[in-house]
């Protein structure tokens, strides 16, 4: 229905970024600095300056996103540019370094930048891929709707379990009261819960239905209900998982951006004052 960030305006910013990179490569190839290529030559300063400017601009995105000022340019356009210029940094910064890496603040800045870029790339992947999966997984329902269905099933299960003895009753009660969707970050991201009381109850019912109480209609009914609930739980957990996937990378992207800025300052400072 609409253009994604990737293809925005016929790849406008891919073109800009590619041009920038090609220019840098060509200059780098024809440039013959004194001694080894490094950040200290005029080309080095040039690439370094451009790189730093781009980084600051990329960072500004966090502010731009939340400043809902009037203007013609859509945030989508900013993000499209953000993505491609961010990726262009790989080439610009690498050339700026002249491939000189070591255990120092300069390389630290480089590594931090790469972490930000990598996390950003994952983010982009998540943004392109997960929205559709999320809609498909919802099957036209809202998360609230799924939870209400689960609550209804719980009520039904408890009604059935009432007459089936303590073992069954306890398991069903636990399934109703202690089943959780979501939780800690890892749990959210995994999209499942191996210790889920509902699953435990389902397994118990299946065992009972296969063995000692195979002709108990109540138990068979519970197998059915719990299986349905387990399905819904899977659906809800998948929803939470996908949402978390679309957000989790920002917990790397943003803090590392700040670390990167700190390292960048140190890098520039040391170059100009201690070099």
């Amino acid at each position, binding site marked *: *229905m*609409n*253009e*994604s*960030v990737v293809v*925005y305006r016929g790849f406008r910013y891919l073109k800009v970024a590619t041009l920038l990179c090609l220019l840098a490569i060509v200059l780098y190839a024809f440039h013959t600095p004194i001694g080894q290529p490094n950040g200290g030559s005029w080309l080095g300063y040039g690439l370094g300056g451009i790189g730093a400017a781009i980084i600051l601009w990329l960072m500004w995105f*966090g*502010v731009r*996103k*939340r*400043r*809902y000022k*009037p*203007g*013609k*340019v*859509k*945030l*989508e356009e*900013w*993000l499209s540019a953000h993505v491609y210029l961010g990726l262009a940094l790989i080439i610009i910064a690498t050339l700026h370094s002249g491939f000189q890496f070591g255990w120092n603040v300069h390389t630290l800045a480089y590594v931090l930048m790469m972490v930000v870029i990598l996390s950003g790339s994952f983010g982009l992947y*998540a*943004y392109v891929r*997960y*929205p*559709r999966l*999320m*809609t498909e997984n*919802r099957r*036209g329902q*809202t998360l609230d*709707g799924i939870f*209400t269905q689960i*609550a*209804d099933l719980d*009520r039904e299960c408890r009604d059935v379990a009432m007459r089936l003895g303590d073992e069954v009753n306890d398991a069903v009660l636990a399934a109703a009261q202690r089943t959780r969707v979501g939780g800690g970050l890892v749990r959210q991201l995994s999209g499942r819960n191996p210790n889920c009381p509902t699953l435990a109850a389902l397994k118990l019912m299946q065992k009972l239905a296969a063995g000692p109480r195979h002709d108990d209609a109540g138990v068979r009914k519970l197998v059915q209900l719990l299986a349905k609930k387990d399905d819904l739980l899977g659906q809800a957990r998948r929803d939470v998982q996908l*949402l978390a996937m*679309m957000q989790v990378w920002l917990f790397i992207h943003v803090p590392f951006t700040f670390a990167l800025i700190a390292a960048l300052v140190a890098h520039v400072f040391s170059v100009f004052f201690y070099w």
Partner: protein
Amino acid sequence: MADHFTVAIIGSGPGGLSAAGRAAAAGVSHILLERCDHASDTIYKYQKGKLVMATPDVLPLRSDFDFKMGIREDILGTWDRQLEEHKVNIRYGAEVVAIAGQKGAFTVTLQDKSTLTAEYVILAIGLQGNINKLPVPGAELPHVQYQLDDPDEYEGEHIVVVGAGDAAIENAVALAKQNSVTIVNRSGEFARAKQGNLDLIRAAIEKNQIECYYNSSPARVTEKTLVLRTADGEAEVRCDRVIARLGATAPRKFVEACGIVFPSPDPKALPEVSSTYESNVPGLYIIGALGGYPLIKQAMNQGYEVIEFIRGNKVEPADEPLLKERFKGLADVTVEQVLATIRANVPIFSELNPLVLRELMLDSIVHTPKKGDIIFRRNDYSNSFYTIVQGEVEVRVNPLDDSEVVVLRQGEFFGEMGLIAGRRRTATVVARQDAILVETQRRTMLKLIASVASVKRQMDAIAIVRQIQTYIAPHTPVERLYDMASTAKLRRFKAGEILFSQGDAGDSVHLIRSGSVTVSRRIGGRDVVLSYVASGNYVGEMALLTNAPRSATVRAAVATETVAIDGKAFVDLLGSDPALRTEVEAKFRDRLEINERMERAPEAGSIIQFLIEQGVGEATDVLLIDESLCVRCDNCEKACAETHHGISRLDREAGPTFASIHVPTSCRHCEHPHCMADCPPDAIHRAPNGEVYIDDSCIGCGNCQRNCPYGVIQMAAPPPDKPGLFSWLLFGLGYGPGEDKRLRKVHHENVDKYGKHAVKCDMCKDIEGGAACVRACPTGAAIRVDPKQFLSLAKLGT
């Protein structure tokens, strides 16, 4: 012997109160009859602490009672005090059930069968009608109530709501958030509710958030329970509170029984009154909301004036200075002269009574364009109506050629097409010489069309010819169209109603003049939607051109009005006009091709069908979210709140989804906005680009919220200011961007200070770059579309 008075005033709302005050001050023997045990029941029933507005600001108040903007309690307090000070003869608990007799000798009967006599009677009973009470024992217990101010006031209670209308549903749903709610419905379904509420209540019942007793009615109320009579015998429901929303009986029946006639059976129609507020029954006067004046100040002024009229005094109407102001562009003429000129020169207004004409002019603007001035342009989104009092204008009908014009002269009108279709202007109109024009607002004009038959008749006769010319035969000389136009009939269809069915004989062409339709065909036993046709187009020509039965079914997507043209007359016209024939045939071939392609792309048809079901068919601009791109970041909502006083006017998550198209809860800027229908201060308008917005004159009555079928209007006060963005970004102060729902609970001080007002999407009409939601969406998932373009194969057939 019954008491006798000069005037009996019925109803102590602002109108009746003010009349009684004047009568008392002038020493006229009078009685003010009020059915409740307090005065001014309509205002008494406003929410506690409601800020009452004194709109229109420019209208001077003329009354012995004081009134200015203020809190409900203060206003009622002042009035109660002044009732005593002025020694008004008021009788409480005196519901009038009948008025008989004639001028000089009316007999007024009260509910307790007592009677009194009066020479004149003033009806000031407002429009609220009688609230229906629970007809069961226990109905008078203190925990039985008939209205609900603030659902958030109640928490953790067992509440039973009785009723199945919109009010009952809205109360039940709102209360269910914090209480355990049961709703009692006398029938087996919720047939009377509007669609949005129907969906809400069904969902809530399905999810067990609300328990519902169908086919049940209350039998009695006790301290802690409500006993119901159900299909399977009696049932006892625990309850701490009963809220009965059984509707009200409209006052019309009572008014008619007094001998007063209404101009039309339309439930919105109001009785006609003379310029002295006298009804068709001599000596019986009508003032206030019942007479069509829906604001407090107007009602109070009329109360004053009516007593003066009865005393035989001539009073200059209170609106005189306003009209002077209106007419100040005209040199040196009195208001009376202007009104007389309009009446003489403009046939469509010449039959109006003086009061109605004044009212009309108050809602109108007098323009005095110079030769060559543009009145409006093609594609402007204004829906007002113009009449030519003097001079000439030219209508530039061809977008490509400004010299192709139709000239309109003194007494003629224009602008009716936009008014009828609720769409953009179809032509540019320019003054041909210096002229005097009257521009009348859409609402006033619609009211006039509904209540004065002659206006509707004159307007339709001319509009039909113009519509045929504009939409079907733009190049055919208008004289050649009269024959066909004379066969045409106006037809109305409800949403979902069929214009004609596949296989029917083709006997007419429908020109859609307002609303829209879908065209579908049965394929493999299923209805497949082939296209959406908006107003300004015609359907049904295919069968006539091919001389075959209807090849498809055409159904109204929303309430629709068509000009139905006789098939033979249409074919005759084509026969006599080969150029037109070629044009119509070209369109016909296009349609054939599109239909064929749509049959091969049924998904596009299903999407159209889905969107139509969501009411998108009547939208002019709707927010859609492409869920295959939406990362659920809610930045759209945050942007909306940040640019609109801290309250988001859209709810992204809510609303249905189909094939990754999500229709969030947000304003669609309807062609004929339902929200506008019943706004006392006329605060809802359409901006030149089509945005439907609410201005500052909103009095917070909540009518628009109830009338919008899509639930997109909220009543809210602005939340308190937040710290700036950087203090949040850098120091974590405040709540961050966007609306914080937690604030809703705590910002009572602003509710008291500013009152709650209606808030809705204004499509960011004053913000450069347009819709903030769309601009703030990082992935391009949020888009705003005009269904006229969007509901087409080109956009949907992927």
